């Protein structure tokens, strides 16, 4: 039986990808961020997952407002590296597991999550930054991946509770797979940030740290957050954090926090949290 063995919440700020590509990991203002991922990379290397389910949002990498899906799941053998307007990043294509993806899609849809199924999908920073922060990729990624795209950029957005329930449904779908697969799930985005209006640059480290506390101790309480409350407290673009609830919803009650970090150097609160799940 396939099972979920871990969950990670992580920001996916594009500037992290740029710094990574330019080899700035040891520069003083970046080092605290990059160093924080080292224990997570080591842990992942030890537990050797086969598949990473990555819950992210597309920022106009390959999805546009002509048909922007509320929830979409990739079901392909590979996912190309998207050009977001500044060229293709030097990363290998993402290996997919179409059979596993289709299994998840079937289970989710019969479980009343009417997701969009994507047989072609290029992935971008929302997906890629978490991937290369958590996994090596030279010459290739150690895991296959399932992209799960969530609309957190064009209101109306799915509710925090709906995102959590999607995680619950993903867990059931994984456990209904007869293949012996070890699965980790990544919830990405946030934390506090605002990229529009005179309030550009707003961050709220206290709110972010309280969110990190709660997602560990009482994640269900976070499902009461409305988009309004998140935007008021943590900035308009902070609504991305509802995708962390999908990750947390996919974990069992026995999940144990094993790592946490927070760093807010510029215009985004960059959070990181990892949970081991023994089921």
């Amino acid at each position, binding site marked *: 039986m396939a099972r979920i063995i871990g969950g990670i919440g992580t920001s996916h700020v594009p500037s992290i990808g740029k710094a990574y590509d330019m080899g700035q990991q040891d520069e003083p203002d970046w080092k605290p961020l990059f160093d924080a991922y080292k224990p997570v990379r080591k842990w992942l290397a030890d537990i050797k997952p086969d598949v990473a389910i990555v819950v992210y949002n597309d920022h106009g990498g390959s999805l546009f407002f*002509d048909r922007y899906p509320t929830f979409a799941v990739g079901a392909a053998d590979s996912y190309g590296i998207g050009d977001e307007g500044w060229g293709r990043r030097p990363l290998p294509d993402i290996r997919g597991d179409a059979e596993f993806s289709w299994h998840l899609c079937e289970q989710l849809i019969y479980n009343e999550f009417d997701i969009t199924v994507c047989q072609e999908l290029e992935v971008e920073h929302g997906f890629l930054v978490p991937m290369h922060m958590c996994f090596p990729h030279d010459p290739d990624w150690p895991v296959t991946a399932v992209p799960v795209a969530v609309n957190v950029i*064009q209101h109306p957005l799915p509710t925090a509770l709906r995102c959590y329930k999607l995680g619950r449904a993903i867990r059931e779908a994984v456990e209904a797979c007869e293949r012996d697969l070890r699965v980790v799930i990544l919830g990405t985005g946030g934390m506090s940030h605002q990229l529009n209006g005179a309030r550009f640059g707003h961050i709220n480290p206290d709110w972010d740290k309280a969110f990190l506390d709660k997602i560990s101790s009482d994640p269900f309480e976070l499902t009461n957050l409305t988009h309004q409350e998140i935007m008021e407290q943590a900035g308009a673009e902070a609504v991305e954090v509802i995708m962390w609830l999908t990750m947390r919803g996919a974990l069992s009650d026995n999940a144990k926090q094993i790592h946490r970090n927070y760093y807010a150097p510029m*215009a985004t609160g960059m959070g990181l949290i990892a949970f081991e799940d023994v089921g």
Partner: protein
Amino acid sequence: MAEQVDKSKKIPGTTVFDWRESRKGYRLNKFAMSFTKPENRAAFTADEEAYMERYCLGEAERQFLRARDFRGLIEECGGNIYMIMKIGNCTGHGLYHMGAQLRGETFEAFMATRNARGAR
């Protein structure tokens, strides 16, 4: 059903990118999305006016673009920040340059408000 966005409680200095903004900015955002193809970036750089014409941009959108007024594109024309960033990258205006415009201050003044400016 709990209300998710309370329209009676406008958040100061904030535009919520909802369906109204998306309808208003559709043409502009589609134009910006085209910058995900290198040949389109090259076409814009070679002849900005012709490229704006190809997408039938409105006069206000063209004026803001000529002036590199990203605040105008975002706040008045329904531009989505993630789409407008693609244009900015092509014209040499990064996110924090746009952010300073949105805040109504200089790039240097904005950067002075940050904790660790090397992480940009």
